[in-house]
């Protein structure tokens, strides 16, 4: 059975540590990136089963990251969760429009994040790759 791989992209180390810890407890192998550009570089090196993306980041923001990720072959459907402090409806809609599958407002409860992320990769966890 392959371990599912996740990439956590957030410019705040506190947030990265928080989300990474939750995903590790959920059974993921986790990599981290500080902004969208670093996210694209890491993802080019192999690709992940799940992306957890912040919006407001220096160098390359989360919207642009997701847009560019979706434009890549084979990444059209990979689960992407946007997690932001922005709770406005238009932020959510922008997230969906660029290609996010889910949108959560920080902070997300650890149990909820574990359940959601596990469900989104349950085909991998069951070894169905």
């Amino acid at each position: 059975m392959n371990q599912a791989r996740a990439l956590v992209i957030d410019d705040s180390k506190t947030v990265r540590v928080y989300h990474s810890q939750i995903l590790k407890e959920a059974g993921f192998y986790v990599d981290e990136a500080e902004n969208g550009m670093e996210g694209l570089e890491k993802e080019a090196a192999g690709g992940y089963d799940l992306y957890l993306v912040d919006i407001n980041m220096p160098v390359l923001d989360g919207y642009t990251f997701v847009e560019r990720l979706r434009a890549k072959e084979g990444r059209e459907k990979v689960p992407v969760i946007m997690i932001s402090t922005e709770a406005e409806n238009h932020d959510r809609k922008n997230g969906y429009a660029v290609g996010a599958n889910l949108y959560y407002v920080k902070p997300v409860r650890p149990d909820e994040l574990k359940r959601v992320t596990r469900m989104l990769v349950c085909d991998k966890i069951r070894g169905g790759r």
Partner: protein
Amino acid sequence: MNPLLEQFLIEARENLAFIEQNLQHLGSGDSELINAIFRAAHTMKGGSGIVGFEAIKSITHRAEDLLDMLRSGKIAFNERMVEVLFDAFDEVVDLVEAAEMSGDVVEADEAKVQAIIRAIDELMNKKEERPVWKLPFKLDREAAWLKGAPMSFLSAVTIDLPLSSGEITEENLNDERLYAILFDVAQDCMVYGNDPIYALSLLGEKLLGIDMAMGRDEAKAILSGFDDEEGLLLRSMIIGYARASWSEIEDALYNFIDDIVIAPLSLELLWPNEPSDANVELYRDMMEVVRDGVAHQDLQAVTESINHLLGLIEPQTATAVAAQRLLRLVEATQLRPIEAWQRHVGVHAVPTQPAPSTAEAACEPPREITESDRETIRVILKQQYEQLLESSDAALVARVAHICSLVASCGRLTPPPTTRQEMIAWIEQEMG
């Protein structure tokens, strides 16, 4: 120390050092610098929220708002900003230090935090610039459409109605109230799969009943043969009764929010219109006693006054009909707070339990799917549903289909279809 808090404090130190070095150049017009300071505040806001450091969250949130207005050109720079922001971040430094010393999140001096927030608010011209608050929905204070609410509905429920609904303000908007929600349903509403009855049912236990009628003007047009070249256009009026907060209504009726009209229910609102026959003076005299009796919670005085009028006039007059309705209404409400409305259903049954999916009905109940899992599935499906209603973009539909199939396989739901319309129906069914 909690490692997450430790990480937050280290990061906060870095951001605070950056801010301290650069804040004095805030007025330089360097947009990249303003952006960087904004992000430093933004990062601290996010981190403090995660570790539960409320005082830092409040201060950095306000500072972030001010910096956001500055970077987007909504306000012009002035020297006072540097001073106020230095004060604000100095307080954050003190809080970080105190947390480092104690090894835990600390409480701030609330008066100090509020003074900082007020100072920032002044810079944002919060008082002047703040737009006049507007009700987020169309309010109908007269609600003529409620005058015909079926008596069977009103008398089947026990009501703790206020005499009048009072003012809805920004502060009390989210208090739970009894609302009547009017959908003036256009004939094409189902084209996009927006079913008002379904949307109302999302209110769950908060929904007390549904009542339907044909839209009055359209009914007239049809019966008179006017304004309907195509034939019989059916336009119906649906009224939902709910005891809920505005945010609950907004969540459930998201797709209809611009089309609905809302009336907070009160006894006065449900009172019959003044009849226009020869007995109207008698009716007015009676109403004076009724209003007084209602104000004093004197049920006996009210019913005596109505019965007195009914004894004086012919039973088939408009005044008698109005008085009888008033009497039944008064008796139904008992003029006193009563614990709860009972559910009453008009034309349509309100689904209380999701219909079992064929998979679940066919085999034994799944062992590993917990109630929390189901809640998570609902959250995921709800977001997919929102996306489908928002757009028919092929890539988006494919993404949604993929997520639905993952959730279905994981949550042991029926396999989802792949076209947009079918998926909308499937999610509705799975979400009950």
